[in-house]
């Protein structure tokens, strides 16, 4: 890590300035005649010029210029950037070929522009060099230029350094994948994963305008990102993923004074990142715990969550279709974030800015939800003292960098009305572009000091920084002003420097009271006047009779796909619930509510559920539909003026709404219980009753544009005949494909086309608001036919409304994702795996809420070491445990005593792994191993001068996901002190190195026998020996992996054994004499012990041994998903006491 601080340069510069500028009107004689040796970039530059004099070929010069630029960018990024600023992006090529001093003089003049009289003096000094006839490659030219730059830098950084004497930032790879989001790199990612290890959390400190950078935390194999500094300036919150496959991003907090780090969230298979401190002390974060897959790709989705300062009560705030990212707290306490959404419209452009209160209430669009431009608004933060925002405008199929913008919502909320490109300030055209802002220089992660001055991640050359080729540039941390004046603050040759945040106390944002009542499961919406605003412009009052409230189901995994296209672009749709060009997601009609004569409505909706509204006319046809969604928190009362009203207007105080003349209306069910809208269940029966008497023809082959291709006098088939779609992996029906005018193409998925007969809004409709009655049942000829009694068909009101709803919901086929699937058993299992994962995480969410309501105290952890002398050492750590440090060596016979919850994550010495320990009593007494007992541990593990122990409560997430449930490096011989615990029928010579415990200590080394690392379970030479692991509580297991000791020829091998489960069942297994792992899978079982019994070996008997046994499975806190049956979770203190609340608030999704 290189600090670009100007220490060395500064020292001689002070001298130089004293010489040149100190006395007014000093003559050229005062310009130093030789350059100080320290000015290496000047030397590099001049050397490069000399070496290039023999190069005539333009390509060779360009290559040399490129190399020179790269060399300087690495060696002296501050100076490298000065020359790009003052000489232009083509500077290095010009430098290598310049033949007179115009270039040098230009540099000096440009750099001196901002300096006033001091700048004039430097320009004068340059003129004197001209008059003195100083040669082209004389170092004095660049000396004068360096002085100008140094003075300029000092002036530029003055305000920043004074306001923010310290900044934290991160070094990590350039985020973003195939889209602007997707950087969770999740350990169990279904497809796309982005993770390039090598990272640091850094601190930049100013001394005057000099800066110094040091690493607070480095991890060559992990990624640290998203620093946020607490309002008191003492702590840094960040996300850290330590391994691509064995870890996921979780929130950590560092105490800046002590550098102590504590982990706040846990679990494998879920990423918690982009944490931000809330003024209440809680935290808002992005997380993939929602277990959703992007509609138009194969990638995990993250939504917004919140937790307390210790990571407790972690719960979901957003219930959003695809990604929500970059939560940032504004001064007034609102949380702003980017929300990507495309319900019933195209996916490319709606990545606008949203806002919510910290408790999740008040979720609403803040900027650009109905616009093509900006394509994506990323990395938004408030500008202090203003209502403006600073952000990065980037694209959709791009990474997380783009152009720097200032947003002023008071000027407008859509398109470019409130957006101003800055650095430099320039015209901000409305651009309709997927990959917006990717040409030229690139910005990311701005943090504004004020409206004009920022710290930002930046690269002047952008993605095409080398030989015109797209590369991954090393972004640097910059000071930047609105006019584009800039200075490099931090740079690194290997990774980008990102996410600069002031590391100092600041005024806490407004604290919003928590308005959520988790004891309720609904919220209310009040609409003052649905006719207000442009959504129903031109629609006569009285037209709207009802609002239909619809929710969407989100896919848990991506299986199969089809595609769509329209004015907003095109996309694939994974796990498609509809034919191509149909709805993105399955729809559930929650019900309808009346709209009063005055346009008002007041009604209840389920909380924590995304809902969107459709304004219905008297026939039940859609007049206007929302193509977005709202989500209420429990007990939230939300109000809006009208239908897409101008967000810069106030509710008109015209009258008191009729809808308020009574309690909120319960939603009226849509002909039966709430259910996913399934074509097979809703529409086909109507067809069967009224249509198939005539419409019974088998489709002609090949079926292309079914209806369009049919002769007018032929009746196409409306039969339920299944039609397999290999690519979509769905079994549609002939009737569905006919009505949706779907074409089946060779090897490609069916794709529908809206027609005059069945006319629906395209899933690729444009982001701007559509006029009323754009499409839908009201525009569908088939509804007119049916109204007219086509072919004698007389549909009931219910049938007509159902038919209309199907069209207005964008012709879904599936009422849920598994419906009508054509998945392989493996695909079914994969989908179910993610559904189950979602269910577990949703249950954890519910349990966290219940714990919060019950104000369940955090588990307390105490550690004590009892010395044989009777002395007790009891160091302190945080309330939730952490690192306990002892100031003296332990003695033989010392005992470590742990008090805490039943599930603890422990690590009892440096060099040993972390492990989950279960103890029903909450107490563990671990004898510090010494002598022979110590031979099964790494040498010196328990002999440190200042021993350290790490203990913390296990998080629920760590129990409920698959792992080796037998692992326990801290198991001891004899009676169990904690679980898992291993025992056996015999242990050779009673020696510790052959103890049963050695087979669960995590060491798989099996080519030797004896002391660590080759310790193993080695019984006497007997038949029918057994070895058993006792889990101490029920666990759900399905796989056993054995590493038999293979110290051949000393060793002998068992050839058969019986797995004896505590539930009384058995499995016979055959063992091989190999050194590699031997894995046995079996039907999942809930067990408390697993015995490897009846171990048989061939005669004559020899030494057989087991180096390691791994049992894969998970804990079974039945209380989570069977609240009425189990109490285990409750007993161990992991699940809050308020189980009834869990039951009542059972996961809704």
């Amino acid at each position, binding site marked *: 890590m290189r600090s670009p601080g100007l220490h060395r340069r500064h020292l001689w510069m002070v001298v130089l300035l004293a010489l040149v500028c100190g006395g007014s009107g000093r003559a050229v004689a005062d310009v130093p005649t030789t350059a100080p040796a320290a000015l290496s970039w000047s030397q590099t530059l001049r050397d490069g010029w000399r070496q290039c004099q023999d190069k005539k070929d333009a390509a060779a010069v360009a290559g040399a210029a490129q190399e020179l630029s790269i060399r300087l960018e690495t060696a002296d990024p501050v100076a490298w950037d000065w020359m790009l600023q003052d000489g232009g992006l083509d500077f290095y090529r010009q430098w290598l070929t310049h033949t007179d001093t115009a270039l040098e003089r230009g540099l000096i003049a440009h750099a001196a522009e901002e300096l006033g009289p001091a700048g004039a003096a430097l320009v004068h000094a340059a003129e004197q060099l001209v008059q003195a006839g100083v040669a082209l490659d004389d170092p004095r030219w660049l000396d004068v230029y360096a002085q100008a730059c140094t003075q300029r830098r000092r002036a530029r950084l003055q305000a920043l350094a004074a306001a923010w004497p310290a900044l934290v930032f991160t070094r990590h790879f350039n985020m973003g994948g195939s889209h602007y989001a997707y950087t969770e790199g999740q350990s169990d990612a279904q497809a796309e994963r982005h993770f390039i290890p090598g990272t640091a959390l850094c601190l930049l400190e100013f001394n005057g305008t000099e800066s110094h950078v040091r690493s607070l935390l480095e991890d060559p194999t992990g990624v640290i990102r998203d620093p946020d500094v607490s309002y008191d300036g003492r702590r840094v919150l960040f996300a850290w993923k330590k391994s691509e496959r064995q870890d996921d991003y979780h929130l950590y907090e560092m105490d800046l004074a002590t550098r102590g780090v504590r982990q706040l969230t846990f679990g494998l298979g879920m990423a918690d990142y982009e944490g931000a401190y809330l003024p*209440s002390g809680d935290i808002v974060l992005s997380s993939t715990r929602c277990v959703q897959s992007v509609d138009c790709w194969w990638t995990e989705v993250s939504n917004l969550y919140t937790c307390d300062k210790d990571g407790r009560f972690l719960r979901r705030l957003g219930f959003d279709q695809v990604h929500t990212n970059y939560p940032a707290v504004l001064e*007034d*306490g*609102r949380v702003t974030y980017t929300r990507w959404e495309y319900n019933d419209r195209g996916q490319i452009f709606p990545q606008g800015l949203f806002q919510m209160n910290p408790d999740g209430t*008040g979720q*609403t669009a803040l900027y650009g939800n109905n616009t093509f431009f900006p394509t994506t608004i990323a990395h938004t933060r408030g500008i202090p003292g203003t*209502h403006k925002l600073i952000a990065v405008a980037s694209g959709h199929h791009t990474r997380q960098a783009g152009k720097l913008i200032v947003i002023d*919502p*008071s*000027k407008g909320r859509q398109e470019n009305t409130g957006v101003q490109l800055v650095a430099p300030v320039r015209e901000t055209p409305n651009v309709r572009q997927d990959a917006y802002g990717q040409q030229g220089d690139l910005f990311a992660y701005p943090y504004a000091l004020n409206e004009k001055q920022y710290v930002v991640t930046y690269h002047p050359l952008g993605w095409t920084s080398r030989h015109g080729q797209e590369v991954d540039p090393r972004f640097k941390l910059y000071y930047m002003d609105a006019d584009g004046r800039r200075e490099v603050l931090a740079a690194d040759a290997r990774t980008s420097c990102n996410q600069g945040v002031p590391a100092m106390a600041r005024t806490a944002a*407004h*604290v*919003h*009271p928590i308005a959520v009542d988790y004891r309720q499961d609904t919220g*209310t919406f*009040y609409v*003052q006047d649905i006719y207000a605003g442009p959504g129903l412009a031109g629609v006569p009052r009285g037209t709207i009779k009802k609002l239909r409230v619809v929710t969407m189901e989100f896919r848990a995994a991506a299986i199969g796909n089809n595609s769509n296209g329209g004015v907003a672009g095109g996309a694939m749709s994974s796990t498609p619930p509809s034919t191509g060009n149909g709805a993105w997601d399955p729809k559930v009609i929650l019900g309808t509510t009346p709209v009063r004569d005055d346009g008002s409505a*007041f009604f209840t909706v389920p909380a924590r559920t995304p809902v969107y509204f459709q304004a219905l006319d008297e026939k039940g046809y859609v007049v206007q539909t929302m193509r977005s969604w709202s989500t209420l928190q429990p007990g939230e*009362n*939300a*109000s809006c003026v009208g239908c897409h009203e*101008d*967000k*810069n*207007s*106030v*509710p*008109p*105080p*015209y*009258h*008191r*709404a009729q*809808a*308020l*003349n*009574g*309690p*909120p209306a319960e939603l009226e069910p849509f002909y039966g219980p709430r259910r996913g809208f399934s074509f097979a269940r809703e529409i086909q029966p109507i067809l069967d009753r009224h249509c198939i008497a005539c419409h019974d023809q088998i489709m002609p082959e090949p079926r292309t544009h079914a209806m369009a291709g049919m002769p007018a006098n032929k009746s196409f088939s409306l039969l339920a005949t299944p039609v397999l779609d290999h690519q979509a992996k769905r079994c549609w029906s002939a009737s569905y494909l006919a009505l949706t005018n779907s074409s089946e193409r060779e090897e490609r998925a069916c794709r529908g086309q809206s027609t005059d007969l069945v006319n629906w809004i395209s899933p690729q409709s444009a982001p701007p608001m559509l006029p009323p009655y754009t499409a839908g049942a009201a525009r569908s000829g088939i509804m007119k036919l049916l109204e007219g009694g086509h072919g004698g068909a007389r549909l009931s009101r219910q049938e007509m409304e159902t038919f209309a709803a199907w069209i207005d919901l964008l012709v879904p086929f599936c009422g849920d994702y598994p419906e009508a699937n054509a998945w392989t058993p493996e695909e079914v299992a994969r989908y179910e795996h993610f559904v189950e994962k979602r269910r577990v995480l949703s249950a954890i969410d519910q349990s966290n809420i219940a714990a919060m309501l019950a104000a369940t105290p955090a588990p307390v952890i105490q550690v004590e070491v009892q010395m044989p002398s009777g002395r007790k050492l009891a160091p302190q750590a945080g309330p939730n445990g952490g690192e306990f440090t002892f100031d003296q060596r332990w003695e033989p016979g010392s005992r470590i005593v742990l008090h805490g919850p039943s599930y603890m994550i422990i690590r009892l010495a440096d060099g040993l792994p972390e492990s989950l320990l279960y103890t029903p009593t909450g107490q563990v007494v671990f004898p510090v191993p010494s002598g022979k007992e110590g031979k099964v541990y790494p040498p010196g593990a328990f002999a440190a001068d200042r021993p350290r122990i790490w203990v913390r409560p296990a998080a629920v997430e760590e129990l409920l996901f698959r792992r080796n449930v037998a692992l326990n490096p801290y198991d001891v011989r004899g009676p169990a002190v904690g679980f898992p615990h291993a025992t056996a029928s015999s242990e050779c010579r009673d020696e510790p190195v052959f103890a049963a415990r050695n087979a669960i200590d995590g060491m798989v080394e099996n080519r030797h026998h004896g002391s660590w690392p080759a310790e193993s379970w080695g019984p006497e030479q007997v038949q029918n020996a057994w070895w058993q692991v006792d889990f101490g509580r029920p666990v759900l297991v399905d796989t056993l992996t054995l590493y038999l000791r293979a110290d051949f020829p000393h060793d002998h091998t068992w050839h058969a054994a019986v797995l004896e489960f505590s539930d009384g069942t058995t499995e016979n297994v055959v063992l091989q004499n190999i050194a590699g792992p031997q894995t046995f899978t079996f039907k999942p079982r809930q067990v408390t012990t697993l015995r490897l019994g009846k171990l048989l070996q061939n005669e004559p008997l020899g030494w057989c041994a087991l180096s390691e046994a791994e049992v894969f499975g998970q804990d079974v806190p039945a209380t989570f998903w069977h609240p009425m049956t189990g109490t285990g979770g409750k007993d161990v203190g992991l699940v809050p006491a308020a189980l009834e609340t869990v039951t009542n608030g059972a996961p809704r999704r």
Partner: protein
Amino acid sequence: MKHAKTRNVSWKTLAGLALGTGLASMLFVGCQDRDVDRTEILAKTVPIAPVEKAYFAPVAVLGAADGKTLYVAGANGRVVELDPASGQVVHSLTVPAEVTGMAAGAGQLFVTSVVPAGTVSVIDIKTWQVRSTMAAGAGACAPVVDDKAGRLYVANEFTNDIVVLDTHSGKELGRVDVVREPASAALSPDGATLVVGNLVPAGPANADHVAATVSLIDARQAKTVAQIALPNGSSSVRGVAVSPDGHWAWVTHVLSRYTVPTTQLERGWMNTNALSIIDLPAKKLLNTVLLDDVDRGAANPWGVAVSADGSCVVVTHGGSQEISIIAVKPLLEKLNQAKAPDEVPNQLSFLLDMRRRVHVNGNGPRAVAIVGPKAYVAEYFTDSLTSVILAEGGKPSTIPLGPEPQWTVRRRGEVYFHDASLCFQGWQSCITCHPNSRVDGLNWDLLNDGIGNPKNTKSMVLAHQTMPVGWMGVRETAEKAVRAGIKYIQFAVRPEQDAAAIDEYLKSLTPAASPFLVEGRLSDAARRGQKIFHDESVGCAHCHTGALFTDQLSHDVGTIGSYDKPEDRFITPMLIEAWRTAPYLHDGSAGTLRDLVTTSNKQDRHGRTSQLSPQQIDDLVAFVRSL
């Protein structure tokens, strides 16, 4: 006009006694003589509002035309002449406290005080002596001088009229009734039109249009020529200024969105802060513009001043500690070009690019004077005067009017009650709905008793002495209500000490003496009415009992309306200061006390009043409005 005397019994003590024990409360039940005594005793002494002498509390600032002299009057009675350049006090004297306003005539200042009974102190600027004291009326405020005509206009906030005085003799030349609680006034340069802002709406709160009005008065004839209704929901009219050309009157007020439930504050959902522009020649409202920004309220617009050239209007925001500097020409042009003029009062970005918000240094900017290139803003709570250069740029500079005030807990509570920076996005403070800590005359659909059932704003006076609190008694105590207000109305989390300070402030509020008392005693009519009030066959005193005329229990007196549930019951309101807390009933449906006992009591369930003669009704009303 006879002036009310003041009271000398601590209401706090008395009410505490009354509430503390059932016995004490019973002392007053059916005991007419005791009540008479009490009323009379109470009516005799003490200032009607506590003025803490320690605070200057500037309420008026005036600049001499030469730009070298400033006059500032403080609520505590101090009037000073300042040299704005040095900040030094050149002259100083003291007039009766509870100063409400000041006007400058040729060589003299006219300072209104509500104590002892609505007077004007005339200060000779040359000698810096109080030359004379004139009688005005109860709640005298907002003095306006017409030097040419030798007339002084004073608004009597409590008697709802304007008194015209001869500036030399102090003789009353005439009186003009206005609508309700006139608290601001300005005169057109030609002296022809007096523009008077009525603080709060009059009439029933459940009407279609509930708004404060601006009275246009033909000053020479001393008669009202127009009552201009501000937009629906207008209240807290605090500032009026007339442009130098006499064409426009600028009126500051709150524009409340009282018809919607108070689910949020975002985008001005509850209260917006407005500037209304009145076309004086046309005698009509041109339009009303919002002073707020989309996500930042400009709470409690207070004073307003127009620059000498008419190019700029300055509004002080008593709640958000700032001023707005508004360019007149572009504003008028934009208003003229507005395609949907009716929508203008609902647009939060209307003033974009034509208004500058400048934070002042002190707290409680109220009065403002423009002198030369600067606006001088009197900061009520910090006893300071901040000057702001109207042209772009420059930091405000501040002149202290005395030692830095050391706020008592009570004073801090008063500051919090007024300070909108407690509130999410600064939209409002407590005072926004409780002007003068009393009522805004509007019905609000707060969510504390469910949604869809608006209730009329209650006065904060004696709120801590009556419980439970609110029409439905949803809060056990006023202390709880204060904290609920911070949480649910201000959408804020504040330290307990802030709420406790607000408690202290509210507990310190004392009722003003009724202007309907005659020399501190009940009038003859009121005395007759008192008998009717206590007449068992009428039954008022059955529920309106005790020292505060409330049994603090809930009843159904036949007033359940369409927004209420049939089982709803309402707490008997106390009747102290009933003369100034209109409208009446939980839904504000009775605009006057007369309506209350006549048209609003057709079923005779709210006392048996149908058998009373018109005279008896008058007497009964006279009694209640004397309390």
